[in-house]
């Protein structure tokens, strides 16, 4: 069946797990395809991935391509680009969507360059104009502006979309669709080779790269209490940071200091424990996506920045959080053990 046109989602799997953003894009792609009156397809690249078709179909994909080969088990830029470029050239979708993840940011520009087409990265909104062109919105100028971009002539129109912008729809288990399994050749000599993987250790990585941070301040009170901050960080897989007061008290090293005379950070999660929120500290962390503040003083300025504010004693609240986290980790491990 020739399937020219249509919306195609590059669904990303890692270790046999579909990435959340791929499910969001299938749901969003379904809406676009319906408005255009076209087909929605999804592609998964990997090895032994037959079972990954189902969730995509239940979210509305009309067709799922599985590019299945042992050589594609983990992300290999050259083979992935070859295989996907071939599939796209053969089936000519008008729109190709990918998640803006570490892999998507590497793969999509390679594909667009190979296909000699336009790509808009880091999109935060998609819509269609009267002619059915995709209008893409993305942040620009360091987040101080928002640009609206189209790809008028070249096809496909490609975009990478930020995770967690779109909603994942409700899966409908009654939906069925065609699943086509292909085995790409993956021939040719690789010019780049992955030789090692270095897992980040939250304890040592630079704070500017940390995804979650637990920060302690003067309110922590003592070296013994500082251990609680470290325990909470460990339970969250987060890095420890400190305010100037805590660094001066030698509870943490100066490389852990956040603020005017320390580092500027932008993690997804920042838990400020016993930090009052003086401007010298907050200018280093105000761009964190989610700020949780725990402080004794209800009038502490940190609460003006916080997404969630907790007034209370650190020594009571932090241990309770750690305990709750451990319960949750244990129950999720148990349930995975059963499955």
């Amino acid at each position: 069946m020739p399937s020219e046109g249509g919306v195609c989602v590059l669904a990303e799997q890692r270790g046999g797990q579909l990435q959340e953003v791929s499910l969001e894009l299938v749901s969003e792609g379904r809406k676009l395809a319906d408005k255009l009156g076209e087909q929605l397809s999804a592609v998964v690249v990997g090895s032994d991935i037959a079972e990954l078709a189902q969730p995509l179909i239940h979210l509305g994909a009309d067709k799922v391509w599985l590019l299945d080969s042992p050589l594609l088990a983990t992300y290999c830029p050259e083979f992935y680009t070859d295989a996907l470029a071939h599939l796209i050239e053969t089936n000519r979708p008008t729109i190709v969507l990918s998640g803006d993840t570490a892999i998507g940011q590497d793969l999509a520009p390679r594909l667009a360059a190979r296909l000699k087409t336009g790509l808009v990265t880091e999109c935060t909104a998609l819509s269609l104009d009267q002619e059915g062109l995709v209008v893409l919105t993305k942040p620009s100028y360091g987040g101080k502006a928002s640009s609206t971009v189209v790809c008028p002539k070249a096809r496909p129109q490609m975009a990478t979309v930020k995770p967690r912008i779109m909603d994942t729809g409700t899966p409908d288990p009654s939906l069925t669709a065609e699943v086509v399994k292909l085995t790409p050749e993956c021939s040719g000599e690789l010019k780049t080779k992955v030789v090692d993987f270095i897992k980040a250790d939250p304890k040592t990585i630079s704070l500017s790269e940390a995804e979650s941070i637990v920060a302690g301040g003067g309110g922590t009170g003592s070296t013994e209490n500082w251990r609680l901050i470290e325990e909470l960080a460990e339970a969250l897989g987060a890095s420890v940071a400190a305010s100037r007061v805590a660094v001066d008290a030698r509870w943490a090293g100066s490389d852990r200091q956040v603020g005017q005379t320390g580092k500027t950070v932008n993690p997804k999660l920042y838990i400020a424990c016993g930090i009052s929120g003086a401007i010298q500290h907050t200018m280093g962390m105000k761009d964190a996506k989610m700020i949780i503040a725990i402080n004794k003083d209800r009038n502490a300025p940190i609460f003006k920045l916080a997404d969630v504010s907790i007034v209370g004693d650190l020594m009571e609240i932090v241990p309770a959080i750690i305990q709750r986290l451990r319960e949750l980790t244990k129950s999720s491990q148990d349930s995975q053990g059963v499955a």
Partner: protein
Amino acid sequence: MNIVVCIKQVPDTDGPVSIDTSTKSIDDRYLAYVVNPYDEIAVEEAVQLKESCGSGQVTVVSMGDSSAEKALRSCLAVGADRAVLLCDPAFSGPDSYISGAILAKAISFLDYDLILCGVRAIDTNAGQVGAVVAELLGIPLVSAVAKIEVSTDCRRVTVQRKLERGDREVVEAELPALLTIELGHKPRYPSLPSRLAAQRKGIDYYDAAALGLLPDEVGSAGSKTTVLSVSPPKPKARKLFAPDSSLSPAERMRLLMSGGIQEKEGNFLEGAPREVASKLVDFLNSERLLPL
């Protein structure tokens, strides 16, 4: 080792960026221009690699109008040997693809073992030019590089790539190759004599004809994408707890009607420590912020 670095002169986004709402574009009257910070790191890496290799040349290439000379000269001041400016009225209004295509064409006339680009420019935030240059030159590409080591025979590089959550991937590539640089050594501060020397150096200009490009292949005419408008960013929507069923209907309505956007202040979680802790953890879990 001969290294080519692609650089871009961009507005300094640390300064104020104002948007002209009538033309729906950036108001460029008051902008300060700088070398794209990622490109600055790439230049520093190139100069250090050249210094450790002991031979070769670092060439910086940029596309832009003659004002981009300033950016090229600041690269010469920190150790680049030669500067090339791709300058033609026909080049104006390019997208990532056509910028990459013009740079690739120009670089094909140069002698190179390694090409470095910043991973992205801070104005467009596209992150595509490196991929286009590598594809059109048919050389291997490694993106988001954080550390470079060159083999002793200068035939291969071993690099660390930046992945999510601070993880790194170690990749080997044959030269010639293109690396897009995300992290690296801190750019050096140029000395006054080197700045003065950079002012006196010549910059090689190439226009479309010199590169053998037709006017309709370049600039906005050759671009794949078109920017329709630039506008101020939308205020960030803020996630709220699901309205608590113990609240009054009026209060719940108010929370829903606010559309999730409100002043941050005042979202207090109260209660006994255990209760607060479990509410918080459940909320973080629902926001997928826990490593489960």
